[in-house]
């Protein structure tokens, strides 16, 4: 069925090709170029060799990303489920509530959290009024996770919601009809059928979480790999580019591992 695409078809996709070249391929080329060169523009693997000093940071970043992804999933699934079962008008309102934070810039959202979590922030203020001592929240790992979860939460809700919305209600009735109570209707029908949504949700949260910058810096007072790359681009672009490439490969590998797990019969989840 392979037909040679006509001139017209080529013409139609041309703008996209230009766009892809300008904003995807060219930048990728530059990343690769810097990663494989040194300060003087000579071929060099020194950037990749230096990567080994950053192994703990990679592990820490992936750990934070995983944790944020799991928490997002556990929170988002029930919420997506509830939204998908609500009346159409209620659905719109609830979806809006989930999405509103996305309308605001990430930096502003993170700044807002900073002021909320501070030792003299609003939460501690209220706690004090209630007679509890100040709780130290800012610059803790918990604050970083909170920031990641908060920022990427909608990306977990939306794909799961979409899948659940399309789930055929008669399949649920069929499962009940064949003897399944609520729990088994969920584990044997709803969960397996919502797996595609879960997979894309995990991808859409895990990828930006692992490579996130700014959030950990402002809320945790620490630098994750994203923050470090951001700093390095200014001081040592070759090392920064090498780290970026390695991060990209790591993310691709973990995503394809996950897809392997879920492709087989749509079966077990991670």
């Amino acid at each position, binding site marked *: 069925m392979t037909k040679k695409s006509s001139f017209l078809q080529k013409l139609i996709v041309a703008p996209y090709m230009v766009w892809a070249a300008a904003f995807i391929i060219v930048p990728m080329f530059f990343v690769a170029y810097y990663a494989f060169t040194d300060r003087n523009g000579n071929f060099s693997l020194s950037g990749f060799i230096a990567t080994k000093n950053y192994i703990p940071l990679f592990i820490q970043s992936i750990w934070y990303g995983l944790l944020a992804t799991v928490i997002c999933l556990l929170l988002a699934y029930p919420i997506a489920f509830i939204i998908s079962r609500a009346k159409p008008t209620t659905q719109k309102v609830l979806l809006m509530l989930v999405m509103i934070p996305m309308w605001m810039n990430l930096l502003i959202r993170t700044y807002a959290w900073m002021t909320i979590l501070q030792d003299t922030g609003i939460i501690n203020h209220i706690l004090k009024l209630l007679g509890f001592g100040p709780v130290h929240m800012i610059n803790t790992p918990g604050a970083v996770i909170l920031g990641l979860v908060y920022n990427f939460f909608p990306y977990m809700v939306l794909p799961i919601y979409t899948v659940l919305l399309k789930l*055929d209600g*008669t*399949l649920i009735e*069929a499962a*009940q*009809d*064949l003897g399944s109570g609520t729990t088994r209707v969920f584990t044997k029908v709803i969960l*397996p*059928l919502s797996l595609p949504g879960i997979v894309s949700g995990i991808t859409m949260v895990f990828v930006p979480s692992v490579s996130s910058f700014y959030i950990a810096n402002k809320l945790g007072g620490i630098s994750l790999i994203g923050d470090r790359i951001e700093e390095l681009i200014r001081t040592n672009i070759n090392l920064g580019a090498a780290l970026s490439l390695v991060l990209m490969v790591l993310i691709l590998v973990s995503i394809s591992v996950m897809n392997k797990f879920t492709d087989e*019969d749509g079966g077990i989840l991670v």
Partner: protein
Amino acid sequence: MQNKLVSLQNIRVKFDDDEILKGINLDIYDKEFVTLLGPSGCGKTTTLRIIGGFVTPDSGKVIYGGAEINDVPPHKRPFNTVFQKYALFPHLNVYENIAFGLRIKKLPEKQIKAKVTEMLELVSLKGFAKRNVNSLSGGQQQRVAIARALAIDPKVLLLDEPLGALDLKLRKDMQIELKKIQQQAGITFLYVTHDQEEALSMSDKVVVMDNGIIQQIGTPQDIYNEPKNAFVADFIGESNILDAVMKEDYIASLSGYDFKCLDGGYAKNELVDAVIRPEDVDVVPAEKGMLAGVVTSVVFKGVYFEIIIDINGFKWMIQTTDYQPIGAMIGISIEPDAIHIMKKSVYSGVYGDYSSFSDEVDNPEVETSNEVNTNL
């Protein structure tokens, strides 16, 4: 037909202030093939869902084995459903679909395998075990749905227009196959359809419904030969339904002629409806006819001609093997046993005249249901 298996007692259901079922009473006996027949929207699916446990009646009782089961959830009822759109699990293959209910019961793997194999054979799908259900044809999917429901030995199998999506040829084959399965497995079937031919050819008992009310329950012969009212007479097969007057027992006057008939027990001069099936009318020369009229339409149907004659303004449909040209004056003769007398009902005068006949020829299968909806 010994013991009562399931009973519906005075079931009423409302959806958004609309009363959908208006007091349904129905007894289903062991190993019976019962068909719910009626036009679209009359409440057939709702009745089925009440028995399956997916709809709770506003009032009335669902009885199984002598006990009320209104509050028993679907998964605890010994009934299984073949859903109208099959509702096969897309993430499971044919084998796992059929094994679904068996796994819920936590049967040992060996027993599951034996049962699934048996089921696959029963529905002639040997060798399809590993197939993806989405790659099957409509008829095959439908048979998987039946096998899945039968695998866990239901006391009653509920089938909601299971053949609705199939083409005519496949539908006929499946009708025979389903009937065979029902007899072999010895299971009670409650079967929903709006195809009257299907209902007549498969059932032990037909339940004709309209507008949330059961119009008649009986054997296919009862329903066809002794319809209770104009709705049933019209819905099941073709029929001429005329206003008549019972002059006395066994004498019905219609269109100005006193016909002999076999019905009695009506008041003197009571107004009634008379049903005469098109195939029971004999064509005779005009002067010898009990009634006479002019042919207004002739359609060749293969085995017979379907002709419409106008007698005193009422259009009769007659099926005859002799060709009659349009405009011819012909007489008709009717044997006493071909006339069936019915009490007047809300349906009187609504059905049974063929003056809008051309519409009906175009679309004989949906004609009846359309007519019901527009006329009620």
